[in-house]
């Protein structure tokens, strides 16, 4: 597979990005949790205040006679902040379609993300992985990633919208 290309996502890629988001959610057994729509992705990624950045991987299509490219992988990231070390690059989603794995596409995406992190003065690249996803954990650890949940004891928490609404309308001081 020597004919793949990595590039910045454009608004026209939104349907493909959503398709791949759903495929990744299915891989993680959580397909029914995707409530995002193409309209959300377009507004949130390509509007006045982008909430994310995206890289796509494309290959020439074998099914189309003109070989126009098909998007077969993506990585979504944004910038976060650690008060101890400053700017970070946070990798939210990273996925290559099953039939295109094993060709080095994922590795190249990760290298491009790391280069972006260093170029934009980020100290670190962070992400989360489900502990059941051993294939991904091994992929990252082989490349030098550290598991902060194991090494330092960090646990991820969330508060959902209903509790947020309750908190934000609580008694004033």
């Amino acid at each position: 597979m020597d004919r793949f290309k990595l590039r910045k996502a454009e608004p026209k890629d939104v349907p493909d990005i959503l398709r791949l988001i759903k495929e990744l959610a299915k891989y993680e057994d959580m397909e029914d949790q995707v409530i995002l729509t193409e309209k959300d992705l377009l507004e949130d990624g390509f509007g006045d205040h982008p909430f994310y950045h995206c890289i796509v991987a494309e290959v020439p299509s074998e099914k189309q006679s003109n070989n126009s490219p098909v998007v077969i992988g993506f990585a979504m990231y944004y910038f976060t902040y650690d008060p101890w070390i400053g700017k970070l690059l946070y990798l939210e989603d990273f996925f290559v379609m099953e039939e295109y794995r094993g060709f080095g596409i994922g590795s190249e995406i990760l290298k491009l993300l790391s280069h972006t992190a260093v170029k934009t003065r980020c100290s670190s690249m962070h992400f989360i992985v489900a502990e059941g996803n051993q294939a991904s954990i091994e992929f990252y650890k082989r490349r030098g990633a550290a598991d902060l949940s194991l090494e330092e004891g960090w646990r991820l928490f969330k508060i959902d919208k209903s509790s947020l609404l309750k908190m934000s309308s609580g008694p004033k001081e």
Partner: protein
Amino acid sequence: MHFKVRAAAKEDCKEISRMIMELAVYENMPDQVKTSHEDLERDGFSPNPFYECLVAEVPDEHKTKDGHCLAGRSTCGHVSVSGQRQPASSSLCVGGQDTLGSSTRQVKRLKCCPNDGYTVVGYALYFYTYSTWKGRSVYMEDLYVMPDFRGKGIGTGLMAKVAQVGVEKQCVRLQFSVLEWNKPSLDFYIAKGAEDLTAKEGWHFLRFHGQSLDTLAKEAPKD
């Protein structure tokens, strides 16, 4: 105790930096703090800020009495030219020249501590993230209240304001992380409806940092 939560201003960065260090000491990781208040000013108050911050203030009559600069240091002193540390006192806090008895010595200002106590006693630092499943989210990176001011609703007040900002920005959830041994914080958050996703869904935090990040970056395809 009456307190006020407000958006941090650039001028608050020195106080925020002080409290960041106090929180790092509490988490047993003070040597990991590399940012200065100048970094916070640049990264939070430029046209493209990387975080937002709220501070909690108490009125002057409730301010701290001791004027500690950094957690763990018991005096904030100035060092004379001869290298002898002098105790902190209001007469030395102006820096420049110091007259002691009949001699006048140049006194180097070591750290400028306010002569009176602090009124900014807590902060919450957060930013916006994105979930490909659910959309806009807010991530609370730090929530801290100085020990003497805990148990008075200040932490709850700060967090409620972060929640309010998140709801106004149409965020669907608030996320944050807690160290597994930090029982007071775990109890605080669970009482507010927080769910432990590491326990429930097995999520682990991973990172590429320092050497591992540089190594990967060097192998990236050229632009």
